[in-house]
Structures are given as structure tokens and as C-alpha cells.
């Protein structure tokens, strides 16, 4: 019976996944990337962990004639896309406004505009947020979570959804370790409680320490 007015309602069984629509679009993105042999990497982190800095560095250091293009997600401004374009690389900015994550429909529009060449790499810089992007499949090939050494070793335990889905976890800003009380082994232990398989790559996007291993990982994925 209907609780609003007491009329006899008819129950319609739906048994539908809430995010089915996003997952369908993500599946289409994944096929689109596969057809073009494009490696799509979704970068996620809290605000300021160093996503854009790592991208700037990667574009410079990932040699071997690989074309890189970037989809930038931010609530507002085109600052990050401009930083990427300054390196000579193509970038499309998505502004999500009130939205706190990218979804598969937004990425589909952006990559059609970006039109990446065959056998290239597309990086997606997600909105700086460790909660919301975890839930939305974009159709990416791999998920990378970046955490900076200034954030505290227990971050993976506080955001298990995000860290649990990562294929690679980058520990950025390791140049600051001598000035911090950050115990790398405690961080690794926290991460292993929520994710046993992710590769851990400590690096500094500003000094370039550890960048070789990161570029090696990207080449393995290509």
C-alpha cells in the first residue's frame, strides 16, 4: 500500500545498480581507449598532493616519442590546464562546479575534444578529493593515488575506498622527509591493510628523485 495516500500501489522490481549508467559509459570509454590503443591513467589525490607537478615532470621526462595529453578536472579555473599547455602538451579542462569528482560522461566529452592519437597516453587529473572520485569508474586503464609525505602515514586507513582501488600509490614530496615526522614503513603498513597489490612508488615531483621508476611503470603499461 502507498504510504502517501493509502492507495494500492503496484510494486515494480528494478534490482538495478545505482551507478549502472555511469558504469555503462565507463565501459564505452574503455572500449574507445582500447580501439585507439590509448593508455588512460586516472590520477587521484587530496588537494595539493602534487598531481599537476607530477604531470609537468612526467611530460618532460617520459621520452621515447610518446605523445601525452591531459584531461584536467577542477571545480573551478583553468589554471592546471594552462600549466600543462605551458609544457607544450594538449590539455582539456573540465570544471565540475559544485561537483566533487569526474564521471564517465564528463570524461567521454573531454577525450572526444582532446582526440588523442593512436598509441598515446592520456592522463586524467581528477578533482582533488580522496572520497568522491573513488566511486566513479571513468573507463581508465589504471588508477593512481598520489599521497604526499606531508599528509600523515595513516591516510590510507582514513580513506580505504580510495586507496583500496589504486593500482599504484605514489608517495610524493619525499624531498621533505628529512623535515617531517613521516615514517615510511608505517605508511606502507597502513596501505597494506587496505590494498595488498598496489605498487608503491616514492618520488619527488620537484627534485625528480624516483621519477625513473614512475616512468618505467608507465612504459610497462603501454
Amino acid at each position, binding site marked *: 500500500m502507498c*504510504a502517501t495516500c493509502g492507495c494500492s500501489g503496484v510494486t515494480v522490481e528494478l*534490482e538495478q545498480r545505482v551507478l549502472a549508467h555511469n558504469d555503462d559509459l565507463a565501459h564505452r570509454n574503455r572500449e574507445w581507449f582500447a580501439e585507439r590503443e590509448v593508455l588512460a591513467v586516472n590520477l587521484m589525490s587530496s588537494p595539493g598532493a602534487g598531481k599537476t607537478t607530477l604531470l609537468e615532470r612526467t611530460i618532460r621526462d617520459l621520452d621515447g616519442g610518446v605523445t601525452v595529453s591531459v584531461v584536467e578536472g577542477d571545480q573551478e579555473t583553468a589554471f592546471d590546464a594552462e600549466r600543462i599547455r605551458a609544457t607544450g602538451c594538449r590539455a582539456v579542462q573540465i570544471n565540475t562546479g559544485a561537483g566533487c569528482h569526474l564521471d564517465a560522461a564528463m570524461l567521454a566529452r573531454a577525450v572526444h575534444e582532446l582526440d588523442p592519437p593512436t598509441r598515446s597516453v592520456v592522463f586524467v587529473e581528477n578533482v582533488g578529493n580522496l572520497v568522491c572520485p573513488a566511486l566513479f569508474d571513468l573507463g581508465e586503464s589504471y588508477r593512481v593515488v598520489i599521497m604526499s609525505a606531508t599528509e600523515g602515514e595513516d591516510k590510507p586507513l582514513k580513506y580505504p575506498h580510495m586507496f583500496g582501488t589504486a593500482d599504484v600509490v605514489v608517495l610524493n614530496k619525499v624531498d621533505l622527509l628529512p623535515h617531517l615526522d613521516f615514517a615510511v614503513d608505517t605508511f606502507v603498513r597502513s596501505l597494506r591493510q*587496505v590494498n595488498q597489490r598496489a605498487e608503491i612508488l616514492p618520488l619527488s615531483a620537484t627534485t625528480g628523485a624516483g621519477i625513473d621508476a614512475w616512468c618505467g611503470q608507465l612504459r610497462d603499461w603501454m
Partner: protein
Amino acid sequence: MHELAVTQAIIDAITEKTGEARICSVRLEIGVLSGVLVDAVRFCFDLVAEGTPVEGAVLVVDEPPGRVRCRDCDEVFGADHLILLCPACGSAHAEVLSGRELLIKSVEVSPACAPPAGAPG
């Protein structure tokens, strides 16, 4: 807050299936390990439903508990968050059996039911 987007996806998925038909109740399943806060969905629901055939519908949410199996010793245990440590052997190699559900189970449709006061149509 991704619950706003999640709630929007719920309303869109329902109206796509049932069109203009008046919905008087919605039954969801949101597992405790799904990463979606039930209270936040409740908060967003009336807001997002406003002006749609779902406006005024009663929201019923089932919350399946987390059940996890240890891959090392086969122990099955309950969990209310995603930090899955086996109470028997301490291993973190665990497989979630249930609790990640994020489903629209069913809706109650009533063509005869009057829309709530103030709703368009």
C-alpha cells in the same frame, strides 16, 4: 559530497524505467561498505526528487552488513568499515562477501495516487 550525484543517479534510473508514473515509495539497498552514507542520501533525496514523479515518495533503505572472508584461514567475520583485518589470524587478505551493495531494489508505482500539494502536474 558524492551522495548528491548518487541520489541524482537513483532518481534518473527510476524515471527512465517508469516514466511519468507517480512513485509513492522507493526501496534501496546501501551496504555499510559501499562508501555511500545513507543519511546523506536521505538528505539529498527530497531535494533531487522535487519536480519529478518521485517527489514525495517514501524512501526505504535496507543496509546489508559487511561480511568478509579471510583468504588465508577462511574465517568469515563481520566488518563495518573497509579496513579488513581477520580477527582469527590477523591477515589483511580478505574478500568482501557482502556489504558493498548499491542497488535500487524496487519502487511502488501508483497511477491513482495524487501528487503531493505544490507539485507540478
